[in-house]
Each structure stands twice: as C-alpha cells, then as structure tokens.
C-alpha cells in the first residue's frame, strides 16, 4: 500500500502545493556489446530510449549512467558527450544505466493545469444529467483520486490501486489546508502554500493513511 504523491490545485486551476511522498525509483542496468540494440534520441536535452525496449528498459526511459559514471543531460561527468561515447566501438562492452524520468517542477505545473479542462470535459460529455467531473481515474498500476471542495479547490492523491481510505485522507488534507494554510495570516489565497506546520501535519497524515488497518482519522 503506497501513496505516491499529492497535488493541490487552486480554483483557477494553478498548482499551489505538491508533495512527493513515496515515489518508486525505477532503474535498470545492463551491459551491451557493440551494435547497440537500443535506439536513443535526444529529447528535452536528455538521452531517451525511443525504440527497442528490452529487459525492463522501456521506451521513454532516460540514460543516467555509463560504466557507473553519471550522465547529466547529454554530458558525462568527465565532460565527454554521451552519444559520441556510445558511437565509438572501442568503448564496448559498455554498461548503461537507464531510469524512468521524474517529472520536473515545470512539468508538474503543466500537467496540473491540464487536469482542469479534462475535469470540465468529463462533465460535458456525460450521458447522465448533472454529472460531476472526474473523481477517480484508474490505470493498470496507479489510481488518482480527486476531491473538489465547494469553493473549487481540488485535492489530488496519486496512489497504488490497492490503497484504501483515500477518500478519508482527502478530507483530512482539506481539514489541514483549512487549519494551517487558510488560517495562517501570512497566507494569501491562490498562492503556493509554504507553511511548515502544514507540511508536518500532511506528512503525518500520509504516513497514517499508508499503514494497514487505517479506516478514518
């Protein structure tokens, strides 16, 4: 049972708080011989796998290390270009490490504002009258619960599909938001939440929710 991350969106759709609670690291290491079976491309200044997924290395994974040496963007730590190293036959056999890329802060803000129109479209395309927007979005290996308050603030929790008590957790987070963000005289509405007490209580609430046998706070 895991809770991966939490997002809070203001009523105008902007991201005002984000917390990664328990994100798994997906890394794969493998030794390759000369003609590299993977097709690599540069996307967003990172070296990504674009074709030929195998042994847990999937399309969209990012190259993070060559022979144990870290790759930042396209560059190795000793200043060599990663793609040039990979093209040179003399460097083989070579050990490559790939990882699933994490969202950057910019991407998080971008994705969070993407959710707003999806929520509205889900109401419009409803086959039943008076439907709400998306409340639960479920894929094969994660689930996203969304709770919209009467004032239009959205709380989103991304968790394992087997995680229970997410609804109770969302209400608890709403309570914490009201108690520690809204009642804070230094907090202004629609602005990112930077309150230490809120952070602390939120962390406790998430940890409690992950414990098995949790029913309500």
């Amino acid at each position, binding site marked *: 049972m895991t809770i991966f991350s939490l997002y809070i969106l203001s009523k105008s759709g902007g991201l005002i708080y984000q917390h990664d609670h328990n994100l798994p690291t997906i890394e794969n290491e493998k030794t390759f011989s000369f003609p590299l079976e993977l097709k690599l491309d540069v996307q967003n200044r990172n070296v990504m796998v674009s074709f030929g997924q195998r042994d847990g290395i999937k399309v969209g994974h990012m190259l993070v290390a060559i022979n144990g040496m870290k790759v930042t963007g396209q560059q190795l730590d000793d200043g060599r270009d990663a793609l040039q190293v990979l093209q040179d036959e003399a460097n083989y056999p070579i050990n490559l490490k790939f990882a699933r890329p994490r969202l950057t802060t910019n991407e998080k803000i971008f994705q969070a504002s993407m959710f707003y129109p999806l929520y509205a479209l889900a109401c419009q395309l409803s086959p039943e009258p008076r439907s709400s927007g998306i409340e639960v979005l*479920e894929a094969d290996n994660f689930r996203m619960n969304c709770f919209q308050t009467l004032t239009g603030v959205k709380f989103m929790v991304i968790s394992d599909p087997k995680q229970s008590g997410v609804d109770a957790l969302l209400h608890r987070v709403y309570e914490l938001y009201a108690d520690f963000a809204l009642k804070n005289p230094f907090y202004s509405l629609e602005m990112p939440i930077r309150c230490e007490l809120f952070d602390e209580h939120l962390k406790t609430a998430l940890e409690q929710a992950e414990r098995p046998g949790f029913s309500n706070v």
Partner: protein
Amino acid sequence: MTIYNLYIFDRDGQMLYYGEWTRKKQSGMSREEEAKLMYGMIFSIKSFVTKMSPVDLREGYLTYCTNKYRLHLFETPSRIKFVLNTDVGAQGIKELLHQIYTQVYVEYVSFNPMCPLNKPIESELFAAKLDEVVRQSPAYASRPA
C-alpha cells in the same frame, strides 16, 4: 446497472462507430462535434496518465468515474480505441470490451471483405451482433428511464 453508449475510434481519431443504449442526456452538439471532443479528451487523458504515472504503464485499459457515470477506454495494439460509458457500479467491463473487440469487431469488420478498415462501419450485421453482446452482458440490465 446499465450501459449508456459506445464510441469506436480508429488510430487517426476518426469515429468508426457510435452505439447508444440508455443514454439520458445528449451533449447538445452534433455527433461529429461530440466525437471530436471525446477523442480530444481521451487523447489528453492518455498523455496526462503517461506523464503522471509514477511507475511504468502497461498499456491498454484505463477508466475514470464521476459521481454519475464511469468511462472505460480500451485500446488495441493497432490503436483502435473503444470508449464505453456505464454507470458507476458496473463490473467486468474490461472483459466486455475485450469480447466486443475479439468476437464482434474482428469477426464482423476485420474479416469482412465489404468493410473498409478506415471508414465508418456501416455493416448492419456488426451493429446487430454488437447490440446482442451488449444486451447479454451482466452489466446491462435495462432500467426504465
């Protein structure tokens, strides 16, 4: 338990088929406009889900629910998309969509020499078989409106 409607899209986003059973509210626009909006929504949801997912995704099936209905999206390896709307409590829809694909779409469209693959489906046999499969499924129990 009920099934509202079904959309089938090809890989370019063209609507191949639309079927309706117990839909209660129309979206207030033409069918083509609605299909474009629906395809736009599932396209964005798919990209949103791939980005937001903390783990690697197995492709093919995803669902969301609101307080009134649940939308199921099943995508075949050839990128044909089946979108089915049911009520919130419907069970076993993944299997139903898989059955619609293998036993109805493949049998009566892919194997049918008279059905062009990238044109809207006009075969009456397909429509009849689809209706039969949907009406027989446990998730479909007609409710008086």
